């Protein structure tokens, strides 16, 4: 109806795909030293960690810190997937991503690495390389 209407109704319609897209925009690996992903490809609930893996491997995200070491361990034990992110100050983040959606994973990751949870919407200027 109008801008006013859609602004007021913003939270009424829960749009996970939109929030996932905004959360991936806010990804920034500046404070991260390494990420160790460990997953069983035959586990039933590993979509979220695979989405997370995919989005940290995006060129724009990798350019924020090229020194991040991403190591992956593919298991065969039907256990829940998890990843451990080591930060610059020695802190570790252990995410067990079972029952999480990719949006939850990335938003929590953003929050704990000191970034805004959701990025800005709209067109972005091209990154200068």
């Amino acid at each position, binding site marked *: 109806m*109008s*801008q*006013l*209407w859609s*602004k*007021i*109704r*913003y*939270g*009424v*319609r*829960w749009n*996970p795909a939109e929030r996932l897209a905004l959360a991936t925009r806010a990804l920034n690996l500046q404070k991260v030293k390494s990420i160790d992903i460990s997953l069983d490809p035959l586990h039933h609930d590993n979509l979220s960690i695979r989405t997370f893996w995919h989005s940290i491997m995006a060129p724009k995200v990798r350019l924020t810190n090229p020194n991040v070491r991403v190591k992956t361990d593919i298991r065969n034990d039907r256990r829940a997937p998890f990843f*451990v992110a080591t930060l610059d100050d*020695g*802190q*570790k*983040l*252990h*995410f*067990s991503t*079972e*029952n*999480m*959606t990719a*949006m*939850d994973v990335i938003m*929590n990751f953003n929050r*704990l690495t000191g970034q805004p949870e959701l990025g800005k919407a709209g067109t972005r200027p091209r990154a200068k390389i």
Partner: protein
Amino acid sequence: MQMLRLYASNCAGKIKAAVETASRLQSTASGAAGHKFQTKEDKKEGTTYISMEKVTDSRGARKDDELCSLCTCNVPIKLTYKDVLILEQFMRDDGTVLPRQLTGLCKKQQLRMERCVMQAFWSGLFGDKYGTEADRAGYKRFNRYWKDDMSMYQLETKQRHGTWFYIKRYPTKNQQLFKNPLN
């Protein structure tokens, strides 16, 4: 929803229950038979553990004869945009409306409440309590008042009585303006 469908297919027969409870879910992730999940954060020796823990819904699915809080006699009159204190209970701190899963209203009342909130913004009843970010550009910068919540949608033209009557009151065709040609 897709995820829910996936789970529901795992436990056939509980599909209906899952859908019923899913309509009331607040958490982002939903599992089989309407389990809700909530992020849990533990800090141990320099490591932060983030995982999902199961939460049980204390209320359960709504029954058919259960009325929402605006349909019962708690609010005997119809909600209007002037009931700002009632409307504020269904809003966040940033001026947006809460979803129906959280307000617990029925569909009809929820939509009415949303319309009333918009009208209250437009009529300036909230002032700048929720900031001036609400889009009041152009013709919306003027405060506006309504009869009821549905009158936003009524495309009625305003009648000006008498205009036509006064224009066509006298025969205007082939009339001499002045009786006296010398004038």
